[in-house]
């Protein structure tokens, strides 16, 4: 059940989730810069990293169908698998109508609650005005708290004026450094190892540590004892 990840020579798997829809997309550009800086930091620390990018726009219809049908078809399932295999995540969305994009939220809505337990995440948002600057911290941060991830302390927000400012690069560097230090510490992996049973899980789910056989299942619970002919505490 415990799966060693990112150890020794194995590369850190960085996954970008990008909800930008234009080509080129400002959101994707921001995500790429964050990913690039993170890889630089990881490499500078003597580790290797591999990057996967999940662009949600081409999957928009499939994601909407998965929401309605209750399960994803193969294309969407394969990106969920990619995300589940991440050691670290860059989550990037445009701001529409004062909030994260519906496409981004719909994608998160179809992943298992335990897909990203204790994994570090850089939160990133772009908007047409600086008035939306708090969307990453006020909307994305609670969402990734619900998913029991570790959003790094620095979120990245970029309005049009930020693209001409060296301070955006400074914030990206800070977030990438935070992500890298967290990854190097192994804290996320240790937390998932030690506390995995305590989270809510779905049998046969998509998380890399999901229960898939009897060896993964905790039989030391009230319900499992009841299932094997036992009784619950009365009262």
């Amino acid at each position, binding site marked *: 059940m415990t799966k060693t990840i990112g150890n020794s020579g194995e590369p850190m798997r960085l996954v970008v989730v990008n909800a930008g829809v234009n080509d080129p997309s400002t959101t994707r550009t921001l995500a790429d810069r964050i990913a690039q800086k993170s890889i630089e930091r990881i490499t500078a620390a003597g580790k290797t990293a591999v990057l996967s990018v999940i662009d949600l726009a081409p999957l928009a219809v499939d994601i909407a*169908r998965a929401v*309605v*049908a*209750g*399960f*994803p*078809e*193969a294309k969407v*399932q394969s990106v969920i698998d990619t995300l589940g295999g991440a050691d670290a995540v860059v989550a990037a969305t445009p701001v529409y109508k004062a909030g994260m994009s519906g496409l981004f939220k719909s994608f998160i809505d179809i992943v298992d609650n335990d897909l990203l337990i204790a994994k570090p995440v850089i939160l990133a948002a772009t908007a047409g005005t600086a008035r939306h600057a708090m969307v990453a911290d006020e909307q994305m941060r609670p969402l990734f708290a619900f998913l029991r991830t570790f959003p790094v302390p620095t979120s990245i927000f970029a309005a049009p004026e930020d693209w001409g400012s060296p301070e955006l690069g400074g914030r990206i560097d800070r977030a990438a450094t935070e992500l890298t230090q967290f990854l190097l510490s192994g804290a996320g992996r240790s937390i998932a190892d030690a506390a995995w049973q305590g989270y809510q899980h*779905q*049998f*046969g789910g998509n998380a890399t540590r999901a*229960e*898939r*056989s*009897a060896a993964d*299942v905790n*039989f030391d619970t*009230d*319900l*499992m004892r*009841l*299932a*094997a*002919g036992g*009784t*619950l*505490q*009365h*009262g």
Partner: protein
Amino acid sequence: MQFGIFSVSDVTRNPITGVTPSEAERIDAIVKIAKRADEVGLDVFAIGEHHNPPFFSSSPTTLLAHIAAQTQRIILSTAVTLITTNDPVKIAEDYAMLQHLSKGRMDLMLGRGNTVPVYPWFGQDMRDGVALALENYNLLHKLWREDVVDWQGKFRTPLQGFTSIPRPLDDVPPFVWHGSIRTPEIAEQAAFYGNGYFANNILAPNLHFLPLVNFYRERFEHYGHGTEEQAVVGLGGYAFIAKRSQDAYDRFRPYFEGSPIYGKTYRLEEYSRDTPLSVGSPQEVIDRTLTFREGFGDYQRQLWVLDAMGLPLEMALEQVELLGTEVVPVLRKEMAARRSPGAAGAPTHQSLVQAKYRDQPPRQPRPNANRGDNLTGVRPYHDTDESVTASPPLVVGQAARFGNITPAER
């Protein structure tokens, strides 16, 4: 291996005519469908249990007893009986009665159901769903195996010296399938008791339920009921058949797209490719079903839904006919040819009687004379095992008259 059909008892608008059948018409229709299934040689007919529109089947044992009286050999079952909101005492009685009237041509499948508000309608709390299912079955299991039951649990009043009547036919309890698509505790309970496990193999990607089926097999062996391949597995399914493949898609499409459940999701072609929904010619449905065996291993029961989504009765009957005459006969041969010699057979009343009694005559309980108040003695039947003990409750009035005595002192 057993092949059959099940219905969720939906009353759905026919998307072509725009007409919604009345409850009366659908109830008449389901009886005709079940009778046709018997006539064409299918092994099983199962009906769901619901307590809200647009469904009609709130009382499965009433319906199944009626069908039993008009059929010859088909096994009648449920898909599912709600083990959460029904009192297990009433389940024990109702299904034992059905077992007698159908001469053993029945079994039942237990499930939690999928309608959230049903819990308060029957005085239960949905948050207790899994625990209710597990505890209620623990009691049901006892009620069918012990003449006199003392029991205490969390969810219902304790039982003292209770006898569920009638005793099961030939004193062999109905076979029980536990239906679940996501809950390892339910699969664990099926394995613990050596009962059947049924995965409703629809509404999800192909082989989505394999981890849970394998978990059940592993635990079945763990509890010493046999090898993993001797575990008793059933699969649900959905089929639409026509002589020619393209006709199947053309004729089924309006019903699929008009369905409140399916129509707003994937296209029919994608849905039948990526999920176990089997649409096509008899040969295509046969080939598809054989892939279930390849994926899940040898299994004992395959049921299909054929009558949902507002299909008119004539079309549903035609589906039953095609299934029974062109699909299942071939599947019987093909499945048998591929079957591992170690795989379990499908349970029937006859096989359970044979397993319990060998060549001896089955037990036929005859009650001892008593006042009929269920308080009269520890041995309700002529032949009740002498080792059976019970502690009937003290009636309050008696306790007051005789003082505080223990059962042992009486």
